[in-house]
């Protein structure tokens, strides 16, 4: 009697988890904006045999946003998954891989991300701040104020804004705007920038130095701004493409 077909691959089988890890690393390596994503669940796995030691795998993955910006050198394993009450963001990805002689490689991937619903967050945490649009006027004003505040106090390089990563607004009991944004060092010190800001350009790729800032601005009842910016140091091969210049 012909040999029985192998049982279908389970989503928690070691082979599926190995493929998912390759897929998630590929997705993060090929993402140029926003945050790194971590695997939350393998939703589905399908195997298409192609011949001896050659199969195609289709994975449906459920990912969760971490607190690490995509330019951060922090290994994914050390990146904290954003908690439910921080207004989590989920990524749904379909990935096609090939397993040829035991070597996994990604052939194609397609993802889309979406924030958890406001109702869900407020059901668990009524006063939690919710994600705000990145072009909200209060968000833009807070980012500008925070970066100017940092640049006015630092003795290091003058920093320029790369992108706003996320923003949340809390309305009560106090009105608070929290923002996170990616920055890059320029070829000027903050002092030089005061004299001739036009001359301050981002460092060339072989010297680039990216960083990340978080800021919280209490608007009412009294104004209070806290800013924290950290530069990662030069990371060979890590580049940043302005939004819209991306290849999908």
């Amino acid at each position: 009697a012909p040999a029985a077909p192998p049982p279908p691959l389970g989503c928690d089988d070691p082979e599926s988890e190995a493929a998912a890890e390759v897929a998630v690393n590929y997705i993060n390596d090929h993402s140029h904006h926003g945050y790194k994503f971590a695997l939350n669940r393998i939703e589905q796995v399908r195997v298409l045999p192609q011949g001896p030691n050659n199969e195609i795998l289709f994975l449906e993955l459920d990912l969760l946003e971490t607190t690490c910006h995509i330019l951060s050198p922090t290994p994914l394993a050390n990146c904290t998954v954003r908690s439910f009450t921080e207004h989590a963001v989920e990524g749904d990805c379909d990935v096609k891989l090939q397993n040829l002689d035991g070597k996994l490689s990604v052939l194609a991937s397609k993802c889309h991300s979406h924030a958890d619903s406001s109702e869900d967050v407020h059901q668990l945490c009524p006063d939690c701040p919710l994600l705000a649009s990145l072009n909200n006027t209060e968000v833009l004003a807070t980012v500008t104020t925070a970066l100017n505040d940092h640049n006015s106090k630092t003795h290091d390089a003058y920093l320029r804004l790369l992108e706003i990563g996320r923003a949340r607004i809390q309305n009560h009991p106090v009105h608070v705007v929290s923002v996170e944004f990616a920055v890059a060092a320029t070829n000027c010190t903050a002092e030089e920038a005061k004299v001739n800001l036009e001359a301050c350009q981002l460092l060339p790729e072989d010297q680039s130095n990216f960083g990340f800032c978080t800021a919280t601005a209490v608007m009412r009842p009294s104004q209070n701004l806290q800013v924290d910016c950290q530069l990662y140091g030069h990371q060979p091969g890590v580049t940043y493409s302005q939004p819209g210049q991306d290849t999908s």
Partner: protein
Amino acid sequence: SVAKRAAAEVAQHDKVPRPVGFVPPPPPCPGKIRYFKI
């Protein structure tokens, strides 16, 4: 209807009795949730 009833009876008898304490294996997918589901 006779055929159906007969088929149902046969199917009933064909059912393999499950050993006491039999726990069906978990469905292969979706897999475990590592953090939380939103």
